[in-house]
């Protein structure tokens, strides 16, 4: 009798120990956004589940948080409410905002060994430009992209162009565009030459033009912009000319979200959009298409874009360590390869492209290499303190020039004055 009671007590203790052990597992909340078509959300969920299955001492609650805008709004609101996530993917350009709001901690504190330091150096330098400031690493590239040019090979053939050759320069894009713009009997355009979307965040694709013309829009400290640089003005003039002077692009603001659809429908023969749309285009284009780097002016060029991992303040050391380990795992070659194949985002580390999985994929589908190769010419995306506001001012200026309400020089001059007024306190 006594013995059985004793056994029960032992069993009960053992049981409570086992629950205690699982209660010791580190809980992480992880916000992620989705900005392009394709299977991004499912893939993140699958990868997270796989990691949790392999590491029973970590629980990761992956929360789909909407667009990039929604995600940063949620993360900031949750932090102010005293309930921050431990880990989040947020636009790389929001780094200065997150620092200014005192919400994030640099990864450096949790990267002590030489191996860890080497890990940070193993990312593409173009992606790290928006991830580091003041000698610290605040963001780890993950959901990163660059814009590329997609073209419809059938339309090229029909226009008498070589279907395997994309325009190399600004002039060539105009020349090809003129051949590709088709009109019906009553003079209405049925197929435009090119489509550079300008809704929502026109600065991103426009920045490609600015970099190609040799202009950088903001300095690395995030406290000075060059919106009224003559080279920027010239780039904006070119963008405006595409629809007004050369008449190879639809006038007015061009919707970002409808752009792939317009491409599939044959409304445009070429389009500029994120490489993150690659899988979407591959699955849905009813014709043979090509992918090329953006055309050059003084140089090739493109901005980088997309989201980084950030560590949030308020997490315990164990949580941050666990979060860093998860980030190291998900950016490692095998996982990154899965991610790239599912979405088209650029695997952030060169070693990923050496894996058998990626080699097999790119052998079968060479366009996937274009964005990677373009990284050599890519520059930091426009990012400053009070980034959303400064970028908002710039977007408004671009919109007013694109819709013909102001000329490029005036619009950009005004934007620069407004940006200066905001950034003065950060110098």
């Amino acid at each position, binding site marked *: 009798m006594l013995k059985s009671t004793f056994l029960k007590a032992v069993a009960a203790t053992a049981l409570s120990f086992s629950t205690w052990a699982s209660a010791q597992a580190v809980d992480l909340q992880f916000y992620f956004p989705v900005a392009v078509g394709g299977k991004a959300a499912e893939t993140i969920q699958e990868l997270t589940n796989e990691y949790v299955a392999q590491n029973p001492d970590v629980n990761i609650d992956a929360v789909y948080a909407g667009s990039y*805008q929604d995600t940063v*709004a949620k993360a*900031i*609101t949750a932090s102010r409410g005293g309930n921050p996530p431990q880990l989040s993917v947020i636009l790389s350009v929001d780094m200065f*905002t997150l*620092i*200014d*709001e*005192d*919400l994030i901690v640099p990864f450096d504190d949790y990267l002590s060994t030489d191996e860890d330091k080497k890990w940070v150096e193993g990312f593409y330098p173009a992606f790290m430009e928006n991830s580091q400031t003041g000698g610290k690493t605040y963001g780890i590239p993950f959901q990163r992209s660059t814009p590329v040019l997609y073209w419809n090979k059938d339309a090229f053939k029909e226009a008498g162009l070589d279907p395997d050759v994309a325009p190399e320069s600004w002039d060539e894009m105009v020349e090809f565009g003129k051949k590709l713009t088709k009109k019906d009997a*009553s*003079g*209405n*355009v049925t197929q435009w030459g090119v489509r550079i979307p*300008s*809704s*929502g965040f026109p600065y991103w694709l426009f920045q490609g033009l600015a970099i190609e013309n040799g202009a950088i829009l903001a300095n690395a400290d995030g406290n000075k912009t060059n919106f009224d640089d003559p080279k920027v003005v010239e780039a904006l003039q070119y963008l405006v000319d595409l629809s007004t002077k050369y008449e190879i692009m*639809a*006038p*007015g*603001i*061009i*919707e970002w*979200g*409808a752009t792939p*659809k*317009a491409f599939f*429908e044959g*409304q445009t023969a070429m389009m500029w959009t994120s490489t993150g749309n690659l899988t979407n285009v591959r699955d849905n284009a009813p014709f043979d298409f090509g992918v090329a780097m953006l055309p050059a002016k003084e140089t090739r060029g493109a901005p980088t874009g997309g989201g980084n991992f950030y560590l949030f303040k308020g997490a315990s050391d164990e949580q941050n360590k666990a979060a860093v380990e998860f980030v190291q795992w998900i950016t490692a070659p095998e996982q990154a390869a899965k991610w790239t194949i599912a979405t088209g985002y650029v695997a952030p580390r060169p070693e990923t492209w050496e894996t058998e999985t990626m080699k097999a994929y790119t052998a079968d589908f060479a366009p996937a290499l274009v964005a990677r190769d373009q990284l050599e010419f890519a520059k930091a995306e426009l990012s400053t303190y*009070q980034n*959303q*506001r400064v970028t*908002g001012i710039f*977007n*408004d*200026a671009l*919109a*007013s020039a*694109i*819709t013909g*309400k102001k000329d490029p020089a005036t619009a950009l001059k005004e934007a620069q004055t407004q940006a200066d007024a905001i950034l003065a306190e950060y110098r």
Partner: protein
Amino acid sequence: MRAFKLKRDWINGWLLLLPALVFLFAFTHIPAVTTLINSFFSTPRGRRPAKFIGLDNYERMINDPVFWKVLWNNLWFAIGTIPVSVALAIVMALWVNEKLAGRSFVRMAYFTPTVLPLIAVANIWMFFYTPGFGLFDQITGFLFGWPASNYLGNPDTALNAIIVVTVWKEAGFFMIFYLAALQAIPVSLKEAAQIEGAGRWTIFWRITFPLLMPTTLFVCVNAVINSFRLVDHIFILTDGGPDNASALLLFYIYEVAFRFWETAYGATLTVALLVLLSLLAIGQFFFFDRKVHYK
């Protein structure tokens, strides 16, 4: 004894009011007062706490061209949506109040826009408006051979395009109120007028319309509030662009507060919105309320 009973009634009364009062204070009055207080401070950032800056935020608002632009847009939006949607609502209500075949179906069809999720609706309309392959362009191109028009991407038409969507959505909702009011009008009035030899038009202007006035006041108050409350369509359809051409006051407040994170300036703009709405409400209740009741 009587005093005790009075007191108990009093306690019961307040207890019954309590849940509503808690919500009213927690979600309306306290935030409104906090907003007013915040508008006199600078925006706190993680590294810099808020400090008292007096009327600086208000000065900035007066000098902010975007503020005046969205205010003007809002005025235009109210003028564009309210009369049209109210008039349409009356016409539709009169129509479905008659005995006609498939009446319930028509009523349901008119009411459908109100029950659909706004974001889904905005997405559908966006594809109606899409240049080239959108529904409108396909129709105008097929019937008249018009070229593609960029309704949402042109600053001259973007706001009007949103007005159309709003009227489409609101009219069906207001129709329900008019329908209820029409059914409450005694048939004897109409019959008496018919005996006197009044035509349909006279009956409408002399009997039906005056008796609908209280409903019209109610609907107008709602329409005004809605015209200042609209924000979700704009996110999907134009994102306030191009160059703020289709941004309304509430959208601008959202942008300033939750995109630019200038919460103090956002609070200042909110105070402006509150003052504006209070003035409108006072105007509607004190001046129109006296004239609407048919006595």
